[in-house]
């Protein structure tokens, strides 16, 4: 087998297959560490805080939020778009990098996909709670009803319903199909009777037969082929929510590509934030190496630069179009009452990620962690800027207004963060964080010991 002499090994340390199984399953064994308990207490508290805010919103109504007649969408839609965007990195890693045969994806795809699922679930919560009546959420689906009414298929908001639902379901089966062989490993390694029975049930009776594997590979490839255009369609449709309206600052054709690259950008940042902590805490530094972090940082540079170009293009086109309202919106973004949000966005998304051009910074774990947090913040503010600054001063100056989030709104966001991190902490205890079988299949060509063998 040809092994490139220049490429860094993807998996460090001389390992055989048995060692890989042991290493990756080790975070699931034994009692969780003190930090895990601290983490879950913190995130659990945040989740409860969110539950309280949900109760308040449903009980008293949307009036507990800071929305007004001018600004009907604000904090909640910002969060919705932010969460959906974060989800995109998981699909990007598992689907698009699979189609491009990028072997480095094998160490990070499992946790990134899990993150996708949790992020989409968090995203879906915001439009539902915005309806004010969570229990009537099913109204958005076309079902035969006594009013003989159907939903509006001409509306991007409805397309969103279909896009997000499909995205959640397809991501879920993609993730689970990939998980089945590894659950088989967990089942076979489990010692307790109850644990064995549970994983035996979850692993669907996986035997590792050659026929199962060939079909597994076909299914993974086709699912990747389906998920790749799906991920583009999802954020494209999310951007249609804005782009098909006539609000200055929203009504632009640049939105779909701009939103998709922004989504991948923020998603990779969240993957980095989570994995930099996880690899340290779970002793998986030999699997998620500096090489992986560097690769992800390169994706951040490219998508961050696309986002930066998009900001500048938007600004230019606003001026070039000659549309008064459009021009005013953009000048208002940069100099108006919400200029601080705009400049946080510009700094965090356009300036700080450019530091990754320096190799020392993009291979430094601490620097990467800090910049990834900056990107998360920056991308949240991007959505805030798009949603709120465009709405708060539009065509009619007499209805100009300002928006301030209430405590309840902030609590809802903190709550979703809490649920997200709680789910992630549970995930690392219950499922293998790295795709064991996939890592084994690249061990020969990309493991360190094999490299030595080939180049002695």
């Amino acid at each position: 087998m040809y092994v490139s002499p220049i490429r860094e090994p993807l998996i460090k340390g001389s390992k055989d297959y048995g060692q890989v199984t042991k290493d990756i399953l080790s975070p699931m064994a034994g009692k969780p560490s003190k930090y895990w308990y601290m983490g879950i207490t913190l995130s659990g508290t945040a989740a409860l805080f969110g539950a309280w805010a949900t109760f308040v919103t449903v009980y008293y109504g949307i009036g507990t939020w800071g929305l007004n007649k001018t600004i009907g969408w604000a904090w909640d839609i910002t969060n919705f778009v932010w969460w959906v965007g974060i989800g995109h990195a998981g699909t990007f890693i598992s689907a698009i990098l699979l189609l491009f045969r990028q072997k480095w994806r094998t160490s990070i795809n499992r946790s990134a996909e899990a993150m996708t699922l949790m992020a989409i679930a968090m995203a879906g919560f915001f439009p539902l709670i915005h309806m004010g009546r969570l229990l009537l959420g099913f109204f958005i689906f076309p079902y035969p009803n006594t009013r003989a009414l159907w939903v509006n298929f001409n509306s991007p908001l409805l397309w969103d319903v279909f896009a997000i639902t499909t995205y959640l379901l397809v991501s879920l089966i993609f993730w689970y199909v990939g998980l089945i062989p590894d659950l088989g490993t967990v089942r076979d390694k489990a010692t307790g009777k109850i644990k064995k029975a549970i994983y035996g049930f979850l692993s669907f009776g996986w035997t590792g037969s050659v026929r199962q594997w060939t079909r597994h590979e076909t299914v993974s490839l086709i699912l990747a082929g389906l998920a790749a255009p799906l991920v583009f369609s999802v954020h494209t449709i999310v951007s249609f929510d804005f782009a098909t309206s006539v609000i200055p600052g929203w009504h632009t054709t640049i939105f779909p590509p701009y939103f998709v690259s922004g989504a991948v950008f923020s998603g990779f940042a969240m993957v980095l934030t989570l994995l930099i902590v996880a690899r340290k805490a779970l002793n998986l530094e030999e699997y998620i190496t500096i090489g992986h972090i560097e690769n992800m940082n390169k994706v951040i540079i490219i998508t961050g630069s696309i986002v930066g170009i998009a900001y500048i293009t938007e600004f230019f086109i606003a001026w070039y179009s000659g549309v008064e309202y459009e021009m005013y919106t953009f000048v208002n973004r940069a100099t108006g009452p919400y200029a601080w949000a705009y400049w946080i966005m510009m700094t965090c998304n356009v300036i700080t990620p450019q530091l990754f051009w320096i190799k020392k910074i993009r291979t430094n774990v601490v620097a990467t962690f800090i910049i990834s947090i900056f990107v998360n913040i920056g991308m949240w503010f991007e959505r805030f800027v798009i949603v709120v600054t465009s709405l708060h001063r539009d065509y009619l100056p007499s209805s100009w207004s300002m928006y301030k989030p209430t405590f309840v709104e902030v609590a809802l966001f903190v709550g979703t963060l809490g649920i997200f991190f709680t789910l992630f902490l549970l995930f690392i205890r219950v499922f293998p964080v790295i795709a064991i079988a996939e890592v084994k299949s690249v061990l020969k060509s990309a493991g360190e010991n094999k490299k030595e063998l080939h180049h002695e």
Partner: protein
Amino acid sequence: MNKYITAYYNDEEDLLKGLREILKKGVKVADVLSPFPVHGLDTVLGLRRSRLTRVAFWGGAVGAILGFGFQAWVFTKAYPLNFGGKPFFAVPAFIPVTFEMAVLFAAFSMVFAYLIHNNLGPGSRNVIHDERITDDRFLFVVPIEDEQQAGAIEETLKAAGALGITLKTKE
């Protein structure tokens, strides 16, 4: 076929080499169990390409037709609504939902076909020949049609370097 032999290798390259040797001697191999997909194994065993791709295609086609047809029916027959004088049969507006339905149906039909075909599912009771095949062993199963030949087959396997050769009876 009541009796069968299982044997294993510790490395996929040994497995491929060994299996070629064994198959050349006329011994049938019913199944190979491995911790990860071994590339080239399907050609050695002469397996056909999976036809699950077709399931995905037809599933997607059904999804697309259903999705498009339903929207068209709702907006032209069931409840035509006038949105600012726009056409009722608005094809471009139907595309996103049609696409999502196609993807949804393709993915689900293929995954269900995959699970059924592989005999996988909650509560499925497949035989687990060796608990280490999901860890680091590459096991293969040789069916015994004639018990007289069992000894000869074992010899062949041993000659090909297979380990842990055991004769088992099907339950």
